């Protein structure tokens, strides 16, 4: 369960291989990951473990590779032409970049929430039901149960239960983002990748999403990319700092923010650049 903070405050430099951490199940094991946009090497030999049932925050200045890294975890980067991935990304021990891996199944297990809310131009209900319908839930009653459960999990049910047939585009930005979270939860993923989910939202909506993340981490593994350091320190248990495609440092959140081991992390956290 959620015992991350009690784990020994270990410190690892990027590129190092982490020995297994006491008692925490490892969800993702990334080993020597390189990513190229054409000739540009956007990720440089990144190695890190991501533990289940906690929030791992990835911080760093714009263009540091943190979003690219996140999108490597569900092979979303493949959609961009002229890109190349090298190294290993193990999901529960299985390399997701192997030829035999079913990408569709991978993405069902590893859900994603995007920077800008991107509901489909359909009703609230149909948005959440999209995934279950795709993966074959024919019975209406079953579908309704899943939709309600997902919306409750995304703390949106009370606000939308009477407007299920209304267009999702009529919701506010914060509601839309929670709808997208509900939509992702409806396919019952194991991991939730969140790519700056609050950057397009107002402070109140941001607060609600952060509350929601704290609840969701009980059941899901969450990887959160954010350029808001306060958000990382508020919600995450572990934090990784990216700079120019390099994972400079990763460790328990408090340690990263209070006693960073690398001068560059220290500079960034103190606001000297980025």
């Amino acid at each position, binding site marked *: 369960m959620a015992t991350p903070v009690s784990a020994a405050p270990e410190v690892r430099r990027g590129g190092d291989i982490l020995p297994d951490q006491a008692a925490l199940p490892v969800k993702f094991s990334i080993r020597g990951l390189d990513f190229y946009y054409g000739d540009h090497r956007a990720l440089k030999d990144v190695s890190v473990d991501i533990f289940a049932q906690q929030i791992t925050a990835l911080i760093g200045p714009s263009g540091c590779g943190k979003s690219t890294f996140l999108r490597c975890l569900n092979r979303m980067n493949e959609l961009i032409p002229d890109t190349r991935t090298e190294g290993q990304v193990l999901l529960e021990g299985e390399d997701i970049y192997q030829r035999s891996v079913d990408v*569709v199944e991978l993405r069902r297990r590893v*859900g994603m929430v*995007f920077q800008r809310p991107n509901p489909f*131009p359909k009703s609230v209900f149909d948005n959440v039901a999209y995934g279950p319908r795709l993966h074959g839930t024919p019975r209406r009653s079953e579908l309704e149960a899943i939709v309600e459960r997902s919306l409750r999990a995304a703390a949106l049910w009370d606000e939308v239960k009477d407007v299920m047939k209304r267009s999702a585009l009529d919701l506010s930005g914060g509601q839309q983002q929670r709808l997208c979270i509900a939509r992702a939860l409806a396919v019952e993923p194991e991991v939730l990748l969140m790519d700056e989910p609050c950057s397009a939202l107002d402070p109140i909506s941001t607060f609600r999403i952060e509350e929601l993340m704290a609840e969701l981490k009980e059941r899901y593994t969450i990887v959160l990319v954010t350029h808001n350091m306060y958000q990382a320190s508020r919600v995450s248990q572990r934090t990784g700092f990216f700079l120019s495609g390099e994972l400079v440092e990763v460790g328990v959140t408090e340690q990263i923010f209070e006693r960073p081991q690398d001068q560059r992390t220290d500079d960034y956290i103190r606001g000297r650049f980025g």
Partner: protein
Amino acid sequence: MKQTTAVGSPRLRSRRRHDVGDALFLRVTQAFALAMVAVVLLALGVTARSAWPAVRAFGLGFLTGSTWDPVADKFGAWPFVWGTLYSSFLALLLAVPVGVAGAIFLSELSPRWLSGPVSFLVELLAAIPSVVYGLWGLLVMVPWLRDRVQAPLNGALGNWPLFSGAPYGVSMMAAALVLAIMILPIITAVARDVLRAVPREQREAALALGSTRWETIWRAVLPFGRVGVLGAVILALGRALGETMAVTMVIGNRPEASISLLNPAYTMASVLANEYAEATGRLHVAALSGVALTLFVITFIVNGLARWLVWRVAHRAGGSR
């Protein structure tokens, strides 16, 4: 405050000069806009006036009558109305699936090195003058259709109304095919642009939920772009309804309303092109004007319906199902 009420102050005078410029600009653009409306109304009025003798002579029977006999001064326009609507419908039936599929390929599936040249060629199709299509249709397609398609079809399924009649070559089928080829580039090019404009976030949302490529296109990209795709189809329909030259060359020009694809037929635009220059009888000219008026009105109605359809789809886009 004093300054704000002082009419004679230099600052306010200069404002007024701007106002004059703005007003002038408004009037000029307004005049041009109204001139366009006037052109449409005048065209409608003149056509209606010259069609008046035919309307008075035949009444509504002009639209429903099937006899078109300039010698006997009997004029019923139904075969032309039918020919125009039927050929356009058939052309859409053929061109929409192919065009939309082509657009999907070009915008979603094709590798980049291929989509450029293919797009260019598709757009080139739209630039070919319609008389060239007509000539190709008459010299190449029609003989081939007659020998390889119509004769066997008629032999095997000749008792079906759809394939009855004699396989002449020039026919409703030939017209629909030529029309389909002509409107294909419009549908493909416009729908391709529409699909390309679908935000990347929509595709990624679908993929991240575990959609396959096909499911992403079918359940996220196309629904998002459906208003635009519909617009592309309507644009194509407009072209098909009014197309004159190519259709006239291959449709056979027989004023007969028939469901058969093998029979020659006639369209409104074709009869105008064929007969207007030689029409001498007063009633004949009036009847042709009546056909023109009908084409005008039908185009109007089709466009209106299409607009309504687009509006409805756009407003339902967010709603349930």
